[in-house]
């Protein structure tokens, strides 16, 4: 902990739900002191979402909250009260970074927008994450994950061409905005080392997701082409898809089918793949001459190769193909990734104990670093460090704390 790359930095984390919270979690992993500021009594809305142990709602045992708030200190503060806003301003004087993901205009209405806070602390880096950014005609539009997937152009390319486009993969728009915010904050901290001043980082969830399908945008700008969704396949090459295969015994017991993922786009890999299936002659047929042709005739192609897949398990297929350097992979759900030998071998899952949720395995960051490794500690309880933070940072005595507590401010 004493060695963290961001050691010595203090972060005020006014996040709720996903986007701001994941950003704060990353800052905490690298050793910053991250103070999660939650409304008294109710806390972050993520505490009400779950999933919960045995499906029994408990604000201290929501998986969403627990995962997104590891390593933080918990402070409750009613920002909607004058006293609460005043305490926040005082804290901002001692902070390096502030992260918030309120709807645009909320911080301003509380007297806590960037101009106000930067007047108190010109070195403050403030990141605001919102659905559509702090300006523009959609600024006050409302959105959830699906609406962000829709308006960023991501949803249109997911799903079957003849059916409705698909959203989901969990909370990806918010996660991506969190990653952009994190990079933006560290960039601003680097600039601060040189320029001596902080700045405001405006992150739009829509823009974050719109930045992550360059293939579709560049196709349009170059040739006017619109990339359509292609079903459970990948655009112009085949077989880059998921095939059903023979179930392993364990999975058959759970009533689950076997599935395997292929990612063949290279003509050399394609020929080798056909040879392994003992179907090399298919490449002589112009319909199946290469991955591009194959994509045009995938229905016929799938009919020809599916029987081979149904005779082999995913384990057999993945290893047979990978031994020949052909991209193939397992198809895991969120329970199966916990047992995957590759993640296990790299120590990706970190066991963290929590007084209410117990000892569980949490996903860590997707990299190992040789210096100043990230640390993973449990999420804060609601208001767990309120006294510690206010006494330690601002020197409040017991009387002042009691006053704030009686007034419902903390």
């Amino acid at each position, binding site marked *: 902990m004493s060695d963290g790359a961001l050691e010595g930095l203090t972060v005020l984390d006014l996040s709720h739900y996903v986007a701001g919270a994941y950003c704060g979690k990353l800052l905490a992993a690298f050793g910053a002191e991250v103070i999660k500021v939650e409304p008294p009594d109710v806390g972050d809305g993520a505490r009400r979402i779950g999933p919960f142990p045995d499906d029994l709602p408990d604000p201290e045992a929501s998986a969403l909250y627990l995962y997104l708030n590891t390593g933080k200190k918990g402070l409750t503060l009613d920002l909607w009260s004058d006293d609460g806003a005043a305490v926040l301003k005082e804290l901002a004087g001692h902070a390096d970074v502030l992260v918030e993901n309120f709807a645009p205009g909320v911080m301003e209405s509380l007297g806590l927008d960037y101009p106000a806070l930067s007047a108190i602390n010109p070195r403050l880096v403030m990141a605001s994450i919102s659905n559509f950014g702090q300006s523009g005609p959609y600024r006050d539009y409302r959105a959830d994950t699906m609406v962000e997937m829709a308006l960023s152009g991501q949803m249109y390319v997911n799903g079957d061409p003849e059916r409705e486009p698909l959203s989901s993969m969990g909370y990806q728009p918010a996660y991506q905005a969190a990653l952009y915010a994190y990079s933006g904050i560290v960039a601003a901290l680097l600039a601060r080392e040189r320029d001596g001043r902080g700045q405001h980082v405006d992150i739009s969830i829509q823009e974050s997701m719109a930045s992550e399908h*360059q293939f579709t945008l560049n196709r349009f700008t170059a040739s006017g082409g619109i990339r359509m969704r292609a079903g459970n396949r990948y655009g112009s090459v085949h077989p880059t898809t*998921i095939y059903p295969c023979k179930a392993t015994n364990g999975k058959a017991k759970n009533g689950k089918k076997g599935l395997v993922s292929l990612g063949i786009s290279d003509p050399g890999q394609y020929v080798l793949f056909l040879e392994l299936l003992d179907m090399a002659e298919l490449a002589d047929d112009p319909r199946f001459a290469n991955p591009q042709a194959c994509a045009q005739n995938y229905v016929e192609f799938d009919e020809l190769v599916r029987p081979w897949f149904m005779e082999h398990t995913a384990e057999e297929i993945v290893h047979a193909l990978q031994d020949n350097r052909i991209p193939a992979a397992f198809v895991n759900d969120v329970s199966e990734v916990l047992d995957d030998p590759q993640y296990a071998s790299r120590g990706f899952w970190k066991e963290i104990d929590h007084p209410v949720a117990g000892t569980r395995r949490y996903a860590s960051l997707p990299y190992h670093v040789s210096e100043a490794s990230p640390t993973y500690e449990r999420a804060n309880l609601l208001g767990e460090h309120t006294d510690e933070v206010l006494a330690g940072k601002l020197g409040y005595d017991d009387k002042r704390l009691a006053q704030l507590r009686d007034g419902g401010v903390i």
Partner: protein
Amino acid sequence: MTVMPKDAAGPLDGVRILDLSRVWAGPHATRLMADLGAEVIHITGRRLAGRRTVTREIAEVLGTYPDNEPGERPWNRNVLNIDMSRNKLDITLELDTERGVGLFKRLVEISDVLIENYSPRVMPNLGIDYPVLKAINPGIIFCSMPGYGPTGPYSHFVSYGTTIDPHSGLASMMGYPGEEPHMSGNAYPDPASGMFASGAIMTALFRKRRTGKGQLIALAQAESGAALTGEASLGYQLSGRVPARMGNRHLRKAPHGAYPCAGDDKWVAIAVGSEREWTGFCEVIGNPGWSEGERFATLQDRLRNQNELDQHVRDWTRDQDAYKVMERMQEAGIAAGVVVNAGELMNDRHLNERGFFWKIDHPEAGTHQHAGQPIRLSETPARNYRPAPTLGQHHDYVLGELLGLSADEIDDLEQAGVIGYEPLVRER
């Protein structure tokens, strides 16, 4: 000979990055850092660049060459590469030659960061793995990002974003109700891994400013997908349940889905949660008789009778303009958005008013509009200060100015095939 100066200070000014990465994940990370002012030197072997040589037929399939015309130098005209390489510099270097590796090591001496996304055995085989380069420059930040990471039983696996997606659990969370896991249409783990890489590299740069030390960052793209679904794998441990695939439906909202609108393949996504939103929604659609019935009285009723509810919503949206529906819903405080395609996205009035798109002029491809940078810094903004380089455009600056080679020495490197300006086309 000198590269074009920038007109404003970026937060990463003075940072030099050597970029051996290819395709998407690595270039996505370095594109971000170049936009923020870092000097990113992209280094390609001319055999690899050979993949950028295409026929007109393939160009039409890809659709990323201006007017589908590959031109005389297609390796300089693919708009996708031009987007990924904006603000970067480019040199060629054959790393399987002694002179190529020698020059590469000299570049490492004067750089802050090296990024590559080869399979784990390539860098050691070339004799330029982290221990070697650290000995040359202890301050070097070396980011390696193979699909499954450098160690473990699958470390040798060949992977793409499209196979990482199902492996990491992401695909299991998307799909039509009761059907198989569905791949993302855009190889999503690629840009997502790139974002983790940029964050890790900049964190290491921040530490280097304080300590002078570099480090090794070993990123596994497969783990990025699992990190971005960490709430679900933790949730499974708590509740014992794996999230069901439910199309566009929501556990606590109804109606919630994509509904067809007037025109070909036009859809609007509508999300109705609270009672206030339901009342507002009913008003927008004119309070039809069915909406007042008992079957839709409470959220529980609406969730229970979703098929019927969706049919009513579809009947209402089907003949309407998707944008009109979005605007009317939003005016009533209801989350709704057009399911935009690439063209609609580029013409989106909100994104254009915010100046999200950058028009970039390129000497061989013309002027095109690209996604800008979602990181909006108030004082040191990201910007485009240099179009994408052509293959080998910056030999004079990088080898001449930075390494001090004479014009004759650079010519000699070209004669010897260590550098060049055209790809070596691979026989297939």
